[in-house]
């Protein structure tokens, strides 16, 4: 079993009405870097929600880390979610917690000891350029700063899959490149990356990345990467 994510004829319908996503079939391979594009409202966030187990599909089959994620019992979900890092489109920082505590949250949820988490969290804060804002509450941070905290929180636990929904929407182009480098560094360590974005300039910044495009609820596959395992990325 080589694939890390597998969708087969997946459909998602919110309430009644037409399917937001229909007949999605694709495979993601470990250690690859994927971009997910599509017009606003095409269903990018919806697809990612299925991926990070925030939503069960209306039909179809999803396999995650080789296991059926559709019929998986509630009790097993936390264990799987800890293997997935998520940058939410709307950040979802905990308002009462400082930047430091927000970033430390996944580690604490997984039971990492206090003495073992101060250094990695401080390093991560430095990485995203917020070393001096460790004690700031989300409300006192700018949109871009909040986004960087959200990214730091998503990557701190070295997840096996990183799902990022529009992670560079609120930062300047320089910071965007810096954050992409963070994702690439993580990718080099073996994490599978899925980034949803509007920003086509971003795509060219990651050589060898695969592309997925959502259109009218269906998936098109311009690089053909979803049918075949991608070639090793050119990291020249």
């Amino acid at each position, binding site marked *: 079993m080589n694939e890390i994510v597998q969708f087969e004829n997946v459909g998602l319908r919110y309430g009644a009405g037409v399917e937001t996503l229909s007949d999605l079939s694709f495979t993601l391979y470990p250690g690859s870097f994927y971009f997910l594009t599509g017009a606003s409202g095409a269903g990018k966030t919806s697809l990612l929600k299925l991926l*990070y*187990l*925030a*939503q*069960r599909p209306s039909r179809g089959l999803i396999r995650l880390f080789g296991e059926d994620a559709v019929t998986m019992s*509630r009790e097993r*979900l*936390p*264990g*799987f*979610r*800890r293997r997935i890092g*998520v940058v939410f489109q709307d950040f*979802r920082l*905990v*308002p*009462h*917690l400082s930047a430091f*505590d927000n970033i*430390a*949250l*996944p580690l*604490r*949820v*997984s039971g990492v000891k*206090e003495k073992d988490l101060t250094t990695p969290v401080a390093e991560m804060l430095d990485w995203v350029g917020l070393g001096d804002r460790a004690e700031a509450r989300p409300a006192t941070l700018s949109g871009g700063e909040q986004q960087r905290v959200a990214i730091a*929180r998503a990557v701190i636990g070295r997840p096996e899959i990183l799902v990022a929904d529009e992670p560079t929407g609120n930062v300047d182009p320089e910071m965007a490149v810096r954050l992409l480098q963070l994702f690439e560094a993580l990718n080099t360590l073996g994490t599978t990356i899925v980034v949803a974005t509007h920003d086509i300039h971003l795509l060219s910044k990651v050589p060898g990345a695969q592309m997925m495009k959502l259109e009218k609820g269906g998936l098109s596959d311009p690089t053909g990467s979803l049918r075949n395992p991608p070639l090793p990325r050119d990291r020249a």
Partner: protein
Amino acid sequence: MLSLFVIPGHDRRLIPEGRLSGPMPWVIAIMIFLMVLATATGLAFAEAGRNVSDQLSSRATVQIIQANPDLKAQQANDAAARLRGMALIEEVRVLPSEEIEELIAPWLGQTAGIQDRPEGGSLLEDIPLPALIDLKLVRPAGKKELEALRAAIKPLAEGARVEPSSGLIAPVISLVQSLQWIAFGLVALLAMATAAAVIISARAALNTHKETIGVIHLLGGTDRQISRLFQRRIALDALLGGLLGLVCGTAIILLLGMQLSALGSGLVQSLGLSWYSWLIIGAVPILGMTLAMVTARMTVMGALRKIL
């Protein structure tokens, strides 16, 4: 139990507690206060009922009904002598006729006195009063004991009746018992109201922190980790409210107790509380707190289970 209170500060900040700012500790305090009072009332009635019936259950009365006063006195004396000889009897007292008249006068009204009657003579003289013998038995007067007494007296006085004294006060005892059960029923209702208040407040707290709960879930937090945060908060509320309710309730019971013993009369005197009643009263806040926490946990876990 202790682990409920030792949650690290960063976890506590996840769900800001705002302790004592909300109405919950006060609601619990009022509920516990009322429960303590109702429990004490119920227990006091239970004890009073028990004391009174204990005192009366070993007593019996012999009535000798005989129109001829001389014969009546004769029979009463014979019966008393016979009863004194019985091993079953601890104490025998023939009531003097003045005492019987005193007992009966209130039933006939004040006007039954001698002076109001034109012919002179008392109404009491016209009514054939029975002779009364008050008995104290060595053990409670059951059916068997009463039969033995009847058998002993029958040959001496044909028209004699033997009644257990508790029969006279039975309506009072059953009233006291009803009051006791009403008090315990109130405790049950208050417990239900407390549980309802906890459910409402737990749901409100869950709703307020819906976003945070969602994030913790998606970061891999378990229901138990999340419910622990809420339980701690409710445990603290319940602890504070329970203590406050207990202190106020106990103060009022003691105050009432002092006032009652100042009155110092029969039934009221027996309204004391024994040490095990105090134990039960002390357990009320603990049970109330446990109820609050169990309800909170069930509410929170139930609500979390509905979220994916």
